[in-house]
């Protein structure tokens, strides 16, 4: 059992790309830190985006500063985290009916900030990417890539843990204790286990994405956040080699990002009042399919395996117009402005610039702590590529086909995840004295992400957890229910053709036979 009361130099709240990036940055500077997360890694926008490593070209019109940041971070990350990135290259594509003036202005805008961009004639582009519409009128090539946000974030936190950082999942901040202008303690609660903890820290970092306003409020500070929901769809097979962007002002279904064996089309943009209903809707799904098909006609007929939604936290008062055109730069807030000396919030930004956001935040934190060690993350590559390899789509099948122990067996047959992988991943839970659970294993591997969406592998892996003693009493079966419901969020709006067949089988099995709807 961990201590109930802990002391550290820096407490980081939020297990997304930014929070884990800060944990790694500070750990590399020799600053002790603890990261707490109310769910598990990538529970918010970090796990619900395109996985696009921006070239910057998307921002050349509205936000050249962001474009430059993307340009630089893109190059840096390709060197520092090559195992998390697929260097696909990208295209910007306009189709009949798109604004020709916008098309004509694109290259000059890129040139202005030295952003590599070269025109490709339409016929060549069709050879490069046969899925492009016959109505394509202009194509430019840029340096986009795709990034695996799960591998990236896991690798960041694993690097940090190796350097001594502690990571607590399922710990929600319930309150702050203050003395004068300083936070002296942060209270945490685990609703699964009922465990409570208080952590004393010299500095507290709020890196909770869309939830920064809620957390700041608990500390007595105020941040106005606008919530903009974006929905994305994952296709059953990969459609293109490269990232494909629609060359027009930001709108729905503008970006298709390939990753391993799948492609992701998105997004939509919908202003939300609260964070209670962050899930895809049927109308968003239909909109993505119809709009995406004008750039890539196959999107009209292809099988989809999952829909998901994330929230873009946007700061500032609600402007009119599309939320996607609000600046995608980031905000670093020193809450000394609210009379709290040792509390900072970092929000906004995007996956591509997570490292830079972590660097700037850590710089501020170190300044306040009086630590003078400079940032190391510009030159030290990510080292935890091995432990995190199971998240990569297509890795496991390749591994399995390449050869495996004769007594190994596939627990997830869709994504070909063997028992040995599950053993290894549960082993990492053991090392850090954590209880392995299905959702946690899901975050660290590809289980449940194939066509059956967890119907079968959830049962097989729960059985494995019982055999191993990692699940007792009702816990493993409860895990199955939670896991199935988590996958369900992403299936519910996509149930036509084959997925409907799959879901009927799933319900017949989990409710008809197992009676799980009747068992708590």
């Amino acid at each position, binding site marked *: 059992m961990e201590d109930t009361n802990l002391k550290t130099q820096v407490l980081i709240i939020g297990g997304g790309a930014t929070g884990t990036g800060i944990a790694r940055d500070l750990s590399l500077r020799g600053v002790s830190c603890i990261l707490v997360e109310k769910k598990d890694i990538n529970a918010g926008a970090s796990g619900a985006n395109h996985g696009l490593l921006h070239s910057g070209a998307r921002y050349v019109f509205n936000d050249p500063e962001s474009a430059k940041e993307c340009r630089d971070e893109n190059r840096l990350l390709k060197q520092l985290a090559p195992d998390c990135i697929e260097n696909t290259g990208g295209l910007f594509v306009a189709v009949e009916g798109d604004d020709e003036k916008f098309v004509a202005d694109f290259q000059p805008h890129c040139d202005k900030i030295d952003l590599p961009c070269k025109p490709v004639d339409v016929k060549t582009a069709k050879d490069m990417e046969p899925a492009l519409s016959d109505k394509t009128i202009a194509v430019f090539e840029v340096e986009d890539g795709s990034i695996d946000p799960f591998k990236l974030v896991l690798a960041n936190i694993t690097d940090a843990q190796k350097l001594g950082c502690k990571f607590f999942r399922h710990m929600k901040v319930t309150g702050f204790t203050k003395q004068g202008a300083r936070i002296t303690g942060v209270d945490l609660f685990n609703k699964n286990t009922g465990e409570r903890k208080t952590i004393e820290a010299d500095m507290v970092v709020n890196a909770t994405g869309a939830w920064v306003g809620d957390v700041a409020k608990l500390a007595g500070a105020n941040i106005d956040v606008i919530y903009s929901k974006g929905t994305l769809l994952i296709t059953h097979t990969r459609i293109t080699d490269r990232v494909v962007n629609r060359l027009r002002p930001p709108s729905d279904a503008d970006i298709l990002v390939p990753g391993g064996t799948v492609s992701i089309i998105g997004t939509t943009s919908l202003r939300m009042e609260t964070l209670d209903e962050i899930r895809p809707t049927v109308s968003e799904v239909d909109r993505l399919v119809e709009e995406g098909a004008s750039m890539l006609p196959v999107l009209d007929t292809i099988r989809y395996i999952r829909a998901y939604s994330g929230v873009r936290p946007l700061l500032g008062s609600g402007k009119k117009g599309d939320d996607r055109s609000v600046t995608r730069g980031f905000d670093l807030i020193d809450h000394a402005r609210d009379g709290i000396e040792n509390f900072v919030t970092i929000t906004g930004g995007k996956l591509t610039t997570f490292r830079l956001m972590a660097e700037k935040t850590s710089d501020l934190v170190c300044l306040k702590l009086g630590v003078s060690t400079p940032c190391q993350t510009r030159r030290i590559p990510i080292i935890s590529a091995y432990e995190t390899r199971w998240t990569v789509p297509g890795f496991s099948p390749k591994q399995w086909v390449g050869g495996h122990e004769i007594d190994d067996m596939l627990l997830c047959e869709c994504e070909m995840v063997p028992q040995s992988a599950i053993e290894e991943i549960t082993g990492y839970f053991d090392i850090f004295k954590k209880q392995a659970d299905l959702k946690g294993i899901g975050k660290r591997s590809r289980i449940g992400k194939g066509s059956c969406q967890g119907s079968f592998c959830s049962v097989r892996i729960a059985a494995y957890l019982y*055999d191993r003693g990692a699940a007792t009493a009702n816990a493993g079966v409860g895990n199955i229910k939670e896991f199935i419901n988590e996958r369900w969020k992403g299936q*519910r709006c996509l149930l036509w053709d084959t997925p409907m067949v799959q879901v009927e089988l799933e319900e017949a099995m989990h*409710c*008809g*036979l197992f009676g799980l709807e009747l068992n708590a």
Partner: protein
Amino acid sequence: MADLQTIKSELAIIGTGFAGIAAAVFASRNGITTSQIGVSGGILYASGYFDLMGVHPVKEQKVWNNPWDAIDALIKDVPLHPYARLSKADIRESMDQFVGFLNETGLPYKKEDDRNVSVITPIGTVKPTYCVPASMWNGVAALLDERPMLIVDFWGLKGFSAMQITEMLTQNGRANLRAVRIPFPSVDLSTDLFPERMAWSMEVEENIVKLADEIRPHLNGAQVIGLPAILGIHRTETIMSGLKDLLGCDIFEIPTIPPSITGLRIKEKAETTLPQRGVHLFSQKRVVSVKSGKNGGFVLDVGDRATGEPEHRIEADGVILASGRFLGMGLHAGRKNIQETLFDLTVFQPGDRSDWHQKDFFDSRGHEINQAGIEIDETFRPVGIDGKPVFDNLFAAGSILAHQDWIRQKCGAGLAVSTAYAAVRSFMKQVKNR
């Protein structure tokens, strides 16, 4: 096309799932010349447990001990449920005849006439059901008594954990449980085992002795033993009594996760026995097109399941449509609506795709899409939007019918068997004896 060989039969049954098999059983009993066409998909996923009626109202999750009382309550509350078109005597008679058929084929079933029993599922939960394969019947009693019980599983059989089942049953109040994992006889320790292969292997006499030898050292006073359902395909009774003699314990099977051997046993019995009783079975084929024939009958072209290439032509006086829901491909979900795939029948359905499913997969109300399906008149003929039968000689049975939720109501087998019974009876009355 013209050179397709034509087969004439009085009745064509479309579907080889539960309802299709039951319809073929009843048709052959009534001396109807019958053709049956279908791809056996869903039946392979059957657990072997036959549900008659277990839960009503679904929303309140009220579990009934007496299925007949549950049916009374259901009919009162849901007058459009297919059960409401039948008398309880008919439902009982249909179940008895169907179970009688399985008994004759050597796949015995057991039940208490007027009450549901509790059975163990592959994940260790306990569910109510009506009629149980004889190979699983000892588990019903063992769940309620306190005899020392041993649950056995095997190295290499994934998704079946004796440890999990004992943990779960302990939660359910059953004491005196132990779990053991053993190697499966005659198989290299290091092999991913599949229930079907294990079951075939158990058909070999010497493997029964070897299995008993593996279990014996772990008995430690156990009086009843639960094993995954792998005890043979055809000779389960013999294998089990052999094990009982060798170990001196009561034995029972627990279904494995689908596709379980229990479904395969039903399929094997149906496919070998029904043709002997005069049913012309087009197995692993599908109906690729249907049109009206000369004398008011139907002409069905039957072809390859994958290519749809027609291979046979059937002329039938009447048809029973038992093609199932989405898994059986009787219904097809598009992005906008649900369609019936062969006759383009009117499908009762929710208005919009966003109404099809609840936000919580396990929502106690069930999913609205499961109420969708074919509406029928009192003689099980599909009706159009005007409420009138579309054809005089087309009948529907099984899960394709609207206004039921067999998964949540726990009435799958009863629904399939009793509606098949009613459809065959209506065919007799309205087509054969016309």
